[in-house]
């Protein structure tokens, strides 16, 4: 504020100029709007303005007074300009704040969302399962849902009259003799395993394949039975594959799907198209194996069937079982979904109630 002090000093002896100074400052100070600022500028610095008047008065002044008056005029002009500038900026700022305050929004109102669709829970489960195997170096293959008996049963080492067939209530499209099974019969595949045979027929090892898809069984539909369901089949055929590889693969899979802390166990079992065969249990995630209603007290949940591909199956497609070995596994996507989300009734999955679909 050196300019202000100098001005006061200079005007100390000139009462007339001091009063102009005071009037000028009070004019600036009294500005309330941008219009006031413009009017003040004209009043003070315009052609007929007070300050301009000071400069005009120099010509008639005493010689020694001239530089003093000139300096006072310059200082005043400078300070007025600064003052008006500052006033103007302050006002703009206040105006912005005021307008923002006026246009305040209720930030708790819901946002303007785009509608997003929901992928069906079963598809999400299948995607998750498949992506784990893609990460393990598998590829996806699919096969027909309306299938020949040959691929569904016979080439999978389930010969005609095999008791394993009586476990599968099959939808038939064409049947030579309703009392007898025939490899040319046409049926709705009862599992996704026929894809194994078709892929092995069409290509050669190494094969690392995952095959999700629909399968059909003629079950009366109720809370735990569906006539159509989704299976995810997987298999590998290569040189030197053994039970250890099967165990390692499924252990990784199960723990990736259900959590690292889960335990996995293999129970020997029987399937016509694998030998040795096993069922795979995961330690119950609801009770951490303590035994609860989810695992029916056993501490374990059954989630997969698996085994080493039966040499007969390999022979059917012309592979030498002494050269190549393989393993296969399969699981129901519905079962995984039901266990994971505690769904008690399968039927919600095919009812497609939007209130259900939107939950996932």
């Amino acid at each position, binding site marked *: 504020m050196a300019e202000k002090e100098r001005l006061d000093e200079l005007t100390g002896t000139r009462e007339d100029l001091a009063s102009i100074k005071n009037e000028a400052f009070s004019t600036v100070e009294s500005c309330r709007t941008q219009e006031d600022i413009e009017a003040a500028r004209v009043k003070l610095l315009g052609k007929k303005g007070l300050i301009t008047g000071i400069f005009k008065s120099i010509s008639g002044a005493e010689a020694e007074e001239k530089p003093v008056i000139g300096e006072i005029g310059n200082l005043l002009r400078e300070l007025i300009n600064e003052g008006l500038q500052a006033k103007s900026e302050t006002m703009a700022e206040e105006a912005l704040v005021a307008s923002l305050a006026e246009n305040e929004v209720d930030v708790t109102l819901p946002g*303007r*969302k*785009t*509608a997003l*669709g*929901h*992928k*069906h829970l*079963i*598809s999400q489960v299948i995607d998750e399962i498949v992506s784990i195997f*893609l990460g393990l*170096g*598998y*590829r*996806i293959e699919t096969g*027909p*849902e309306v*299938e020949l008996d040959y691929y569904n049963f016979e080439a999978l080492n389930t010969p005609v009259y095999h*008791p394993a067939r009586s476990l599968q209530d099959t*939808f038939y*499209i*064409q*049947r030579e003799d309703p009392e007898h099974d025939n490899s040319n019969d*046409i049926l*709705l595949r009862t599992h996704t395993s026929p894809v194994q045979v078709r892929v092995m027929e069409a290509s050669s090892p*190494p*094969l*690392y*394949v995952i095959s999700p898809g*629909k399968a*059909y069984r003629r079950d009366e*539909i109720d809370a735990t039975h569906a006539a*159509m369901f989704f299976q995810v089949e997987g298999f590998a055929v290569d040189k030197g*594959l*053994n*039970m250890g*590889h099967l*165990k390692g*693969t499924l*252990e*990784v899979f199960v723990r990736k799907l259900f959590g690292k802390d889960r335990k996995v*166990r*293999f*129970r*020997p*079992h*029987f399937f016509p198209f694998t*030998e040795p065969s*096993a069922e795979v249990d995961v330690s119950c995630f609801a009770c951490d194996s303590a035994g609860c209603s989810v695992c029916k007290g056993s501490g374990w949940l059954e989630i997969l069937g698996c085994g*080493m591909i039966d*040499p007969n199956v390999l022979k059917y497609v012309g592979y030498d079982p*002494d050269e190549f*070995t393989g393993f296969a596994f399969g699981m129901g996507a519905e079962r995984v979904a039901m266990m994971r989300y505690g769904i008690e009734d399968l039927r919600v999955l*095919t009812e*497609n*109630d*939007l*209130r259900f*679909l*939107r939950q996932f």
Partner: protein
Amino acid sequence: MRVSLEWLSDYVEYSMPPGKLADLLSLSGTAVDRVIEMGAETTGVVVGEVLEVKDHPNADKLKIAVVYDGFENHEIVCGAPNLFVGMKSAFARVGASFSGLSGGKLKGAKIRGIASDGMLCSGAELGINDDASGILELGEGTPPGTNLSDIAPTRDVIFDLEITPNRPDCMSMLGVAREVAALTGARLVPPSYECNESGSPAGDLAKVIIEDLEGCPRYSARVMTGIEIGPSPLWMQRRLVAAGLRPINNVVDITNYVLIELGQPLHAFDLDLLAENTIVVRKADFGEQITTLDGVERQLDDKTLVIADRKRPVALAGIMGGEDSEVSGDSTRILIESAHFDPTSIYLTSKRLGIRSESSSRFERGSDPEAAPHGAARAARLMNQLAGGTISRGEIDVYPRRTVPVTIDLRPSRANEILGTRMTTDEMAGILEGLEIAVEKGEKLRTTVPSFRWDLEREIDLIEEIGRIYGLDKIEEAIPVGGGLNAGLTRKQKLIGSIDDTLLAQGLSEVVVYSFMNESDLDLLRIPSYNPMRRALPVINPLTETGGVMRTTLLPGMLNTALRNTNRGNRDIAIFERGRVFLSNDPGELPEEIEVVGILLAGVRGLKNWSVETNENYDFFDLKGIMENISDVLGVSVSYKPEDRAYLAPGRSAGMFIDGDMVGVIGQLHPEIAGSYGLDGEYYFGEFMTGPLVEASRENTYKKVGRFPNVKVDIALIVEETLPASTVLEKLTDLGAELLVSARLFDVYQGNQIPGGKKSLAFALEFGSADGTLTDEQAHGELERIIKEMENGLGAELRGRINL
């Protein structure tokens, strides 16, 4: 299969807690589905003799009985209808505990004013059988005071086992005992088959002829005389109940007992009801009939194997006996059948006739031919002990072609290769021997399989045995290398995924619907006979609730889904399904399976929102926009032309074309069709094949983008009303060549400002060049040229232009 551990312990001397045994069985392939703790310890219940029965002064139906418990007399109140003087029954002293008290102790009580010092119990109350109709009646030779738990233990643990179809041998106590012995090394104690024979030779009393050796390779029989039919002993009744069977009488109970014990199904005939005391095993004749034990009269044909006498069929072989040769209370002479039947024959007959029994479920999986005489002998021994019968001398055993034992060579190296183990030959031989498989050691193991293991035929079968007894948990884990170059998604699979993603991003939710429909759906949808959608494949044995044919379109499934949702109050529908439709081919050929996507829209578009004044309903152009976004994402050029479908509203449906081939249809559902599915309001349906879209998809190419802004001009052209907008747009795009970067239709106008019969189409055009040097003048020169061509080519008239 229900296995009572109390019973099992007769045959194998194992010692471990039930939980541990269950784990051991489960982890070796005999899954224990449930462990059932059964009954309770019985204490303070003894054999009591009824010395005196008096009327109850205050109740007609109650009696007062004086019971001697081997120590003193007790006066009790009893309401059992079968109470009589001299009877021996189960007497519970005050302070006793048994199953029916569920943990409590019996207290002395006054019943209708008379003190009762204890009680007489029914079998059901003690947990011995399910008979609650009266008090237990015990046989003669049971001295009063004997502890009841010595006669029939009532506390037991039952394993509910899941027996896999390859292990019929485990459908028996002995079979399970063999597993336990192999797993624990405990000693196996088979039951005794020793028969105390006397009287006439069996061969003089009865005759067995096998006419169909293929169906029945072996028929063993024993003949009993002097049988006294009565109840079986309590311990046997309790074991049968534990196994899930109902006690009937001593003879029937013994055949069932041996069935469960050995897994060998038996049948007892009243020998005096067999014509000429002869059994003939043969195929039935056409027209023959039999009334089986379930009371059903069955017509037989020449495929059915029967047990006959000299006159008529008396049993369906291996499945069920006939009523008129059944053992009854009057029977004294009995023929015990213990045969071996061909599994396939039993399987087919039981399937054809729709009967399954404890017998057929064992025979159809394969029984042990060598166990046949054991079954007959064991039953005879028990009938001799428990039903007062005399065992006739000698056994009848028709077995002309002996089964040759199976031998299998095992390469130990192969076993290690399959299992991923490093077992020694000795270890493997030890495991096999534990399973009663004989082993000759050499470079290969030469094994001989016991007759009860039908399932062991190949080397791999032995490897499985070694693996499961060794323990799968001991096999070291490894991860294979994977498919290398062949791993991962194909380009087509990724594109299919992006179709799903694009639909989801536009607010459509995915549905999963059964692949069936009703033939009548095609009529409802008015599909003409020549349309491929009529090629619906019928299912021979459909379920009524899912429909009788394979679907040829997703539409019915989607409409039913919409209906279910609207009925439940979900009126705004935006759904899609990706799945297969099935078009039949010639008989004997598999159908064509075509993957399609179906889309159904109805009600309010998108999400209702507070900031939008009116929420608009879906219309045709929402559906088309969804389709266009899909083709944009795939980089496919799809054109739309009017295309009529009987199920779509006339003038509001279009075909989707790629290079002139139709790949799908979109349109408004015909309101009458909506009505016939119970829906009202506007529904928009589209269906397209994924295959051709994915096939036509091209990878995006890079075009240089100029550094200067594009020149933007809006123009409005007046054209004939009937000229399709797509024709005008295509012409513009064609004419625009390199410099016209984009052309977008943004307005359609008809009204006062333009002549009748005409319409105004407004386009936003952008000109630009990759090197960024396009000037305003060049751009406008190009526009002039284009407008002139439009005027000449399409008779269009420039209505106005705005430079932006």
